């Protein structure tokens, strides 16, 4: 057990994400998208949206301004992506102002092929100014003990 269990059930300070057109375009371009609804505001508006809409995994870019305190003592070279779940109640649109908060939901562990794997379950929740939940981004990261290559 290398990850501090006392963080389970805690959350970081909320932070605000201003969803900007440039950020949507940069993200869409980086993932190889060409859909005009992510690049061309006039086309997005013609399709009935107030502005550019964001790709389904855009909330991956909603990051707290400081690193999660439960990850701070860990060796970043041993952190791997395990599982990811996005849920959305509505589309994210340029101009949205979202209040985001990162929660540590749980930490579990199991034995991998060559060492212990710890599963850190984190969830980012984004609310609009009316308090409505817009998206959640649940991310399970795997922390491999030194020398372990498991989880892949």
């Amino acid at each position, binding site marked *: 057990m290398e990850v501090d269990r006392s963080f389970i059930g805690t959350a970081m300070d909320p932070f605000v994400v201003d969803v900007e057109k440039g*950020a949507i375009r*940069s*993200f869409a*371009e*980086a*993932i*190889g*998208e060409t*859909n005009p*609804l992510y690049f061309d505001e006039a086309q997005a508006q013609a*399709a*009935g949206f107030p502005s550019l809409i964001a*790709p*389904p*995994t855009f909330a*991956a*870019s909603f*990051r707290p301004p400081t690193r999660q305190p439960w990850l701070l003592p860990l*060796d*970043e*070279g*041993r*952190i*791997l*992506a*395990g*599982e*990811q*779940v*996005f*849920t*959305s*109640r*509505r*589309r994210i649109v340029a101009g949205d102002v979202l209040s985001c908060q990162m929660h540590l939901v749980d930490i579990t562990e199991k034995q991998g092929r060559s060492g212990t794997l710890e599963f850190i379950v984190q969830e980012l929740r984004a609310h609009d100014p009316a308090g409505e939940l817009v998206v959640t981004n649940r991310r399970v990261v795997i922390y491999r003990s030194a*020398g372990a*290559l498991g989880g*892949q």
Partner: protein
Amino acid sequence: MQQNKLEPGAVHRLTSKPVTTTQLVKYAGASGDFNRIHFDEPFAREKGLPGVLVHGMLTMAIVGRCVDDMAAGRARVAEFSSQFLAPVYVGDAVAAAATVVQSDSPEHVRLEVVATVGEKTVLKGKALLELEPAGA
């Protein structure tokens, strides 16, 4: 826009261009994920990896393009989940497939998604599309 059928058994496929280090740097910038195993080869090797690893979230985003094609403006991606099963490296082309499975509601379309590199399955997941009235 091309409309794929959303009946059970319908499949949509998409293969990415081989992922480049430049793309990883762009994704790092756009997503804020600056873990050095995704762009710093000596660092990645020091950590016991054979080379620079593609962000799992970038692989998922490529699968998301496939899901998005299926939604094609008439549905919203309400849920999208992935498990990362094997690493993807620079130079790999990611082949994504989304298959419509039986849904329990007429307003929703369920998809099973998979991504492969060559013969190897690198990601498996699910998506739930919520159908929208035209122009919503």
